[in-house]
């Protein structure tokens, strides 16, 4: 099953915790908002992604499985 980290950019406030917790997946743009690599999650990045999803104070991150929205 293909799984990806995604951001609800409307909910996102550019807090930036995700870029620290999932540095292999997330970098921030010139204004502090996350740019997420479109790669499928591996075992390592999957762990990072879950940590980022749980830590986001805006609840803006989610893991998508084959186009279906899912929780952490």
């Amino acid at each position, binding site marked *: 099953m293909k799984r990806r980290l995604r951001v609800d950019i*409307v909910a996102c406030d550019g807090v930036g915790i995700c870029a620290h917790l999932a540095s292999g997946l997330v970098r921030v743009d*010139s204004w502090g908002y996350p740019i997420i690599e479109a790669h499928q999650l591996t075992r390592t990045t999957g762990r990072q992604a879950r940590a980022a999803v749980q830590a986001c104070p805006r609840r803006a991150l989610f893991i998508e499985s084959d186009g279906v929205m899912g929780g952490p």
Partner: protein
Amino acid sequence: MRTAVNAYPRTADQFESTMLPRPVHYFGTGGALTELAPHTLREHRQHFGARPACVGAAAGKLIDRIEQARLTGRGGAHLPSVVKWRAVRAAAGTRGSIVVANGAEGEPDSRKDVALLELRPHLILDGLVCAAEALGAREAIVWLHENAHVSRAALSRALTERTSLGEPAEPAIRIAFGPDAYLSGESGAVVRALSGGPALPAFRTVPSAVKGVDGSPTLVHNVETLARVAQVARGAACASELVTVCIDETRIVLDVPTDASLHTVVSHAIGAHPSAVLVGGWGGSWRAWPDLAKITIAEPSLRAHGLSLGAGVLHALPRGVCGLARAAEIARYLAAQSAQQCGPCQFGLTAVADRMTELARGGRRTRRDAARITAWADEIRGRGACHHPDGAVRMVVSALEVFADDVAAHGRGRCLARRGRS
């Protein structure tokens, strides 16, 4: 310059099926100036014939015809309409669906939807009713800007006529309004507003064709697309496009055959050759005038040249006007029209517009400004909940490419466009 405009040359056959046989002129924010009169229901039926019923077996036939005619949406992406229709039909089941005619024309230069609403309201309503019947809709809605008084009056008149002159079997049609903002015509914003939320684009993972207004499968089509549905239902082909040619304060709406070149369309409408054209609307792409001779307004031809008809706007840049200054002006407008929901759009577009304004003023930093803008554009592209930021950066980046010589000239404190005039 730009005074007499003849009817676009056509064969008798094309004339019969055309939506607007003559151009419609608009000046500034004023109303339509045209010899065309709004069609009454009787005239409409005489001209186009009666609306075919689209229930039962006819529903599937209409959807097949939409596919064969290669009808596309007018939301900027020109997606095949049949994809949405099939998705709505499949998702509707017994719940029923909702069909929406989107007449909230956000593009400041566009007048084609207003012209259609005002002059051919029955064609739009026919298309909406066909869609409602074919997709088993429980609600049919026309979505307008709240200050679109002329369109609203024309539609109300048309709806009254339909009830009194015997279209009794038709589903009820409701008119709904959104604020007069650029983005209230964005399809996600329409769905959100009709569900009781604000008229702002939404972040969505499921398309509105599956889960739209109040969770029901929803078909949102531009009013022109629905007018084409009304023609397709009658067996006509989609061989023309409505475009708005804009120069200064003048806007001319034309129904042009798809094999017409951009050169022909623009020079016919304004009676002059501009120096460049912004193709597709304010979120479109600039092209120098000589590059447009071989491109027709058919979407495949435009796509092959990296263009799209988008909102159907051809914005002509008069000779002697600086393209960089015009692009900066448009960028500032688009930045101000951001819904302020997504960071990359809210902050990014403002940054791009400010830097573009400095670049247009000229000075030694011009080349660095251009590189900075291009880098920001790469960061912004594809990152909004809607495509507003994509269009804005596309317009700016294409300006830097098309007016590249002028970027260099601005760096030396000169301007090629203004020099050309003197």
